[in-house]
């Protein structure tokens, strides 16, 4: 067999190019002699869980990428992310952003386009973007650019203590339950079960306190009745009859809540439900395992805890979206390694491992259509699928604007004043609308 000189040269050139490509690839993902270290900034609520459990699993696939995760309290996380990312020498390659934060980080110009050419070159062919439900994926999209991938999905859902419904001789709720049905049944769920003449079981506990997440309850009621938070051109749209009625409904829930519920938020309502004191709870679905499964944190069992979308309004059911997305700092020197982690964790295989091993909620259709390893997750998957649909249909998420947190704080202030009875719901929403328009202007 004859080999011509120019063929030999072409072959050598091709081999050189291939070896250069492989070398560049290896450098980006580290080598045994020269590993890459990437840093992630995450909510302290799950940073340690990831460091202890997720990183070792990731390192089975990518042994040359060392991952260091720093946890920060939720209330400081956005400010810390912005401060670090906008600095001249950012420490963090990966920023874990809550649902409303991506517009703000994107406008600051610090995020990498994950569907851009650079990242596309590193992305595996079988990584299916279309496999994500639209609602969770949209949480990290801003102005038609995809800046993140859903890593920990969450929805505001309705938890049901079936034993209390049974004790009240009421049928256990279904996803078809309307707000009218719910409010009609609520008085019957306030009961004196130990017979000492005082109520010891109540219908509901949820967010009532002055907290940025309290308006999500009101907003979900409003959205399920067709109301909107903002107009398409970014003006307040919530101070109408639908918004006012929704706020009145939120306030009315206090009539069927435990004493002191006006100052209750995440912890208190969770505690009341887990101790079997409330029949329902509007809460983030991610607490399901600790509420229904883990005996060290709950008095309830999976059999007696139901989970479903919030009651149906005049338009649709309710489920407020809350997605933690993984994003990459575009100034990072380890962008490829950072993407390797996000890609692995949000891939079909990574997400299934994440859901089955750590109980984290998925965002992929393939995962939600699969049979989970744990039996308790099956009803959660059903609720999530319903929730993603209604959340997408009703626009049930916090404001999509770079000033989202400022808007949310305004809503928290005014909704809390209405719930505390300091002003009427009409006054609260009119004041909030003026302030929101000021902020957005």
């Amino acid at each position, binding site marked *: 067999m004859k080999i011509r000189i120019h063929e030999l040269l072409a072959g050598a050139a091709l081999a050189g190019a291939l070896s250069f490509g492989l070398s560049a690839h290896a450098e980006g993902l580290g080598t045994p002699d020269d590993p890459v270290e990437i840093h992630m900034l995450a909510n302290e609520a799950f940073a340690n869980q990831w460091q202890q459990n997720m990183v070792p699993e990731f390192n089975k696939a990518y042994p040359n990428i060392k991952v260091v995760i720093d946890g920060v309290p939720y*209330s400081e996380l956005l400010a810390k992310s*912005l401060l670090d990312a906008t600095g001249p020498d950012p420490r963090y390659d990966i920023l874990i952003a809550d649902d409303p934060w991506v517009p703000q980080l994107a406008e600051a110009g610090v995020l990498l386009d994950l569907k851009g050419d650079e990242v596309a070159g590193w992305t595996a062919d079988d990584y299916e973007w279309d496999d994500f439900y639209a609602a969770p994926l949209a949480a990290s999209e801003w102005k038609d650019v995809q800046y993140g991938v859903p890593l920990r999905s969450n929805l505001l859902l309705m938890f049901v203590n079936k034993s209390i419904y049974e004790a009240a001789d009421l049928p256990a709720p279904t996803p078809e339950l309307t707000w009218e049905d719910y409010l009609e049944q609520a008085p019957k769920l306030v009961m004196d079960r130990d017979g000492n003449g005082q109520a010891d079981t109540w219908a509901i506990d949820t967010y009532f306190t*002055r907290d940025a997440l309290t308006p999500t309850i009101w907003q979900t009621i409003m959205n399920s009745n067709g109301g909107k938070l903002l107009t398409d051109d970014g003006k307040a749209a919530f101070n109408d009859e639908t918004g006012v009625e929704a706020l009145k409904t939120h306030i009315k829930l206090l009539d069927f809540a435990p004493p*002191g519920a006006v100052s209750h938020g995440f912890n208190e309502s969770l505690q*009341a439900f887990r101790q079997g004191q409330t029949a329902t709870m509007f809460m983030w679905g991610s607490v399901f395992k600790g509420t229904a499964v883990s005996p060290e944190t709950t008095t309830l069992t999976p059999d007696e805890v139901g989970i479903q979308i919030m009651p149906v309004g005049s338009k649709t059911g309710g489920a407020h979206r809350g997605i933690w997305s993984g994003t990459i700092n575009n100034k990072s020197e380890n962008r490829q390694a950072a993407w390797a982690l996000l890609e692995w964790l949000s891939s079909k295989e990574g997400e299934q491992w994440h859901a089955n091993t750590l109980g984290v909620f998925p965002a992929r259709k393939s995962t939600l259509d699969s049979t989970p390893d744990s039996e308790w997750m099956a009803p959660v998957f059903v609720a999530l699928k319903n929730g993603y649909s209604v959340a997408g249909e009703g626009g049930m998420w916090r404001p999509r604007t770079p000033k989202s947190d400022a808007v949310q*704080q305004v809503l928290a202030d005014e909704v809390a004043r209405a719930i505390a009875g*300091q002003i009427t719901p009409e006054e609260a929403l009119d004041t909030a609308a003026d302030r929101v328009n000021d902020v957005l202007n």
Partner: protein
Amino acid sequence: MAVETAMKGARKARPRKTVPMIDWLTRWSFMMPAIVILLAVLAYPILYTLEISFSSLDLGSFTANEWVGWENYGDVLKDRGFWNAMKVTGIYLAWAMPIQMILGFGIAYLINAEWKGRGVVRALFLIPMVVAPVVAGGIWRMMLDPLWGLVNYLLGLLGLGNPDWLGNPTLAMATLVIIDTWRWTPFVVLIATAALMALPKDVFEAADIDGANWWTKLWSITVPLLVPIIAATFVVRWLGAVKMFDIALAATRGGPGDATNVINLYIYEQAFRSLRFAESAAMAVIVLVMTMMLTGLFLIGTRKLEDNY
């Protein structure tokens, strides 16, 4: 008189020496590290706050990018939340400060007598001061919850109802004052105890010889002698109390509604939750100026009291 005149003359006659340059440089070189550290940790943050209070802040670079004059201050002065927070802070200070001063000095006076175990009680008084305020606020929040709290359980045993400490606006303010008083009264007690122990004993012995009763000794000797200490303690506590926000954050979160939203909590929320750093800086400057003016007034008052007594 003659000696004084002679001394004045001697002072005048002393030749003025020019400080040699090397000596001047040596003195300043010793002071320079302290000056640099002081400028870095004190002056720079204040000047930076001042700068961004007159600017719009670019979150992309986290720097002041455009001079906007008094615009941020104008926005703050029109902000209902800011004025509400100032009012809430005023109410909190008006209740907490006198209660802590009266309780602190009162307790110190009562435990000033010699008795076995006094040292242990004084040491126990330190505990609330060393508990982190956020922890203290959280624990009080649990104790005061009408559903699970120990406080209402005990009140229930006494038939005193089930007050909603954190849900009723008036009671929530009372809760804030109670927690702050629990935390800071021991500080006042410690200072007052030290001051009481340092009072001259001969004055009280003379009063005993003159037949003064307990009340006369308290009102005519102890209080006048303690006035400078009371005034100084008041100023120190005032400066601490005006900055309070951690207890409110942990115990009431500024609620219900905005009933306990003290000014520092409001500024913190506007800065770190709403990311309105420029407006927050303007608020901080306004509060700083007002605090300095009031502190100045208190110091003048303190000096006058010291002169009168």
